[in-house]
């Protein structure tokens, strides 16, 4: 009742223009506000305002303190000792302390149905040393550990609220973050209000944050153009000009951490033949894809690690289109006249356009691409069962390189849609997880990238950029490559 009243008051204040409200237009309705059960990318936009994490990322993807003020790595990378921020309280008034950290990490790794259990599977024990110190013990050294704690696995929820609300926690989330949950109406809005007791003095600056889902690109941009929302993400490439031409609005583009491309099935169809994989790959012109489909807003890719991330190796060239090579490989593969295959894609205008560009480029080498559109769930299902010859599925990306490759090209990995299996790659992948020295890791990932460019379980085509359209009045939102908008320091000027 109290929450409902607060919502009514805030909403009417918003209508009168008294509250500083920022309305954010997203491309989907965040399904789950409990980090334990969240598996949609868009959830994290809202999570990051309600929950603080043990550590955060900065503009250069470096790990920076958040609820943990410092940490030590001991015993050859198998023990992490975190010192916690003092005097932090959850929105329900309870204390954040070492017990809360233990509760959260234990919940994430062992609660039934936890979507986080995989990421934290190497934790063997979480020990409370004193109220502000926690020791986390790992089974073996695991270099991506801190990066994982900068995402949902590091989000601290109120243990009291979880115990009180049980399965309903996701509908009444409680964290320590800069904004408190007020109300949600499915497919309509999520309303958050300023946490007046936020540990970082003077923050947040705005009073209210409202998230609204607009699945349709045109509708999302119309809402920004009309001033009904202050900021939208993502922006379709075709809408960038309309935003740029509006004097009150601006566009912010920055490199993301994911990739898009095509899985080639090594277990059936023409792509069991390595030369034919190489032939098709050689027909792709990444610059044309960028210019034609993304109007220059995507980055041509040389592998799973985008520029600006730890493992990116700029000495590895972005493969160029080479029709002569394609024809030579066709001959080598015993199909000098070309061959045909089916490329399966999920529905969507951009994906369809992209597939047609691939189709046109391959046709010039005599390779016929049949495009098959399948609903996304079915596509994942069939891709996982290795039933598709080629499938266009990308990855949103993770800050640590391991998150962009380990579960994808390893033998029998969960997201390996090519059936690729190479013991040498697996060996390198496992080593890159345990080494902590960044240079050594980069070297291992470069070796892997080169092998994959040759073997082609996946053709890395481009790295999508994060595109944001926003009002010029809105400032103070840091540009962090994970694509999450952090509103802690946001302010709305020039009323």
């Amino acid at each position, binding site marked *: 009742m109290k929450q409902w009243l607060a919502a*009514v008051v805030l*909403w*009417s204040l918003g*209508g009168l223009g008294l509250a500083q409200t920022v309305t954010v237009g997203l491309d989907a*309705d965040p*399904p*789950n506000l*409990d980090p334990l*059960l969240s*598996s*949609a*990318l868009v959830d994290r936009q809202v999570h990051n305002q309600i929950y603080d994490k043990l550590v955060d990322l900065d503009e250069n993807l470096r790990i920076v303190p958040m609820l943990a003020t410092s940490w030590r790595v001991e015993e050859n990378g198998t023990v992490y000792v975190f010192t916690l921020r003092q005097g932090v309280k959850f929105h329900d008034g309870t204390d954040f302390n070492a017990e809360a950290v233990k509760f959260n990490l234990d919940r994430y790794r062992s609660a*039934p*149905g936890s*979507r986080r*259990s*995989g990421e934290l599977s190497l934790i063997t024990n979480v020990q409370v040393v004193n109220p502000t110190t926690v020791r986390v013990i790992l089974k073996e050294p695991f270099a991506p550990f801190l990066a994982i704690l900068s995402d949902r696995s590091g989000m601290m929820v109120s243990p009291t609220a979880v115990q009180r609300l049980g*399965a*309903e926690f*996701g*509908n009444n989330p409680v964290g320590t973050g800069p904004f408190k949950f007020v109300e949600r*109406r*499915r*497919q*309509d*809005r999520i309303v958050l209000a300023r946490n007046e007791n936020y540990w970082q003095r003077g923050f947040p600056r705005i009073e209210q944050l409202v998230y*609204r*889902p*607009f*699945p*349709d690109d*045109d*509708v999302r941009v*119309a*809402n920004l*153009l*009309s*001033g*009904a929302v202050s900021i939208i993400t993502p922006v379709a490439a075709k809408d960038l000009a309309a935003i740029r031409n509006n004097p009150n609005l601006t566009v912010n583009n920055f490199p993301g951490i994911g990739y898009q491309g095509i899985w080639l099935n090594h277990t059936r169809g023409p792509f069991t033949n390595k030369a034919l994989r190489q032939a098709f790959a050689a027909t792709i012109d990444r610059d044309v894809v960028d210019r034609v489909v993304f109007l220059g807003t995507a980055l041509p890719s040389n592998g799973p690690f985008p520029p600006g991330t730890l493992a990116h190796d700029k000495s590895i060239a972005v493969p160029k289109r080479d029709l002569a090579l394609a024809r030579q490989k066709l001959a080598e593969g015993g199909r000098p006249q070309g061959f045909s295959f089916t490329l399966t894609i999920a529905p969507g205008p951009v994906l369809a356009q992209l597939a047609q560009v691939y189709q046109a480029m391959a046709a010039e080498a005599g390779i016929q691409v049949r495009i098959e559109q399948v*609903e*996304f*769930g*079915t596509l*994942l*299902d069939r891709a*996982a069962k290795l039933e598709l010859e080629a499938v266009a599925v990308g*990855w*949103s990306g993770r800050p640590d390189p391991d998150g962009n490759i380990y*579960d994808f090209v390893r033998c029998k990995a*969960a*997201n390996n849609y090519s059936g690729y299996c190479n013991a040498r790659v697996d060996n390198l992948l496992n080593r890159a997880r345990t080494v902590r020295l960044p240079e050594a890791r980069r070297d291992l990932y470069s070796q892997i990238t080169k092998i994959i460019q040759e073997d082609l379980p996946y053709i890395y085509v481009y790295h999508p950029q994060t595109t944001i359209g926003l009002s010029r009045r809105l400032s103070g939102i840091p540009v962090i490559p994970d694509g999450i908008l952090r509103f802690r320091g946001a302010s709305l000027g020039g009323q």
Partner: protein
Amino acid sequence: MFFFVLRRLVGGLPTLLLVTVMVFALTRVLPGDPARLLLGEEATPELVAQIREELGLNRPILVQYADWLWSLMQGDLGRSIRGNEQVAPIIWQKLPTTLELSFFSLLVAILIGIPAGVLAALRRNTVADAGVTVLALSGISIPNFFLGILLIYLFSIRLAWIPPSGYVEPWVDLQKNLLLMLMPALTLGTALAGAIARFTRNSMLEVLSQDYVRTARAKGLEGRVVVYKHALRNAAIPVVTVIGLQLGGLLGGAVVTEQVFSIPGFGRLLVDSVFNRDFPVLQAVVLISALAVFLINVLTDLLYAAIDPRIRYH
């Protein structure tokens, strides 16, 4: 009358049971595994298996159906797979929105459709008649999303009179609520008005050629009285049937219009639950919509009697 209604309601039970079977079967033949969709990027085979077990998706389909029906009879619509929350409150949250949108759309449709139809019938084979026909056909054939986007472009972006989309509950801010309802109601209403206008015209033409209308005119009755009291009332029955059918469709959710104007009603819930294979929500929405259509049919039957006193229900 009372017994008629009771008989209709009881008679509808087998139909509704059949609907439950259909709904359940249809949702289950959809390709795509809800567990995999739910997990998205996080899907590992172990987790998928665990979630399937948790959701009861690995049990025989008949057992799943019986379980759902049993819960349904106890008033329990289940839990959403996607959002992990009770389905009944979601339905209750959406119902007023959908009812409001349906009401206003129908109002627009009737206010435009019936006068236009009457006008076309009275001025048969004139420019007015042709004009109404053209407008009616345009209303029917212009896709909702196109008209919606056009309205947004004109009234929200060019003129900046109305917010482009969204929904505010009437009890929170009535003025804003009505303002936001304007464009979606126009979008949906004009499409329906076309059909209503065509039916009104045809039905009126039929009635106007009847002997009693000629008699009424011969008696020297005023033209307006003849048209509204004698002709329109008798022409209304097929029109009411059409309106009833359309209202049933509206209550099932105006999928496209709700999407364009970001209205959180049944239509968007339906689309989202289909895409996410959120079976419990999908089943509930379809079932409630079927129930609404059924109730409206009963209501339409009762309206016939109100319009035409010769009709009696026993």
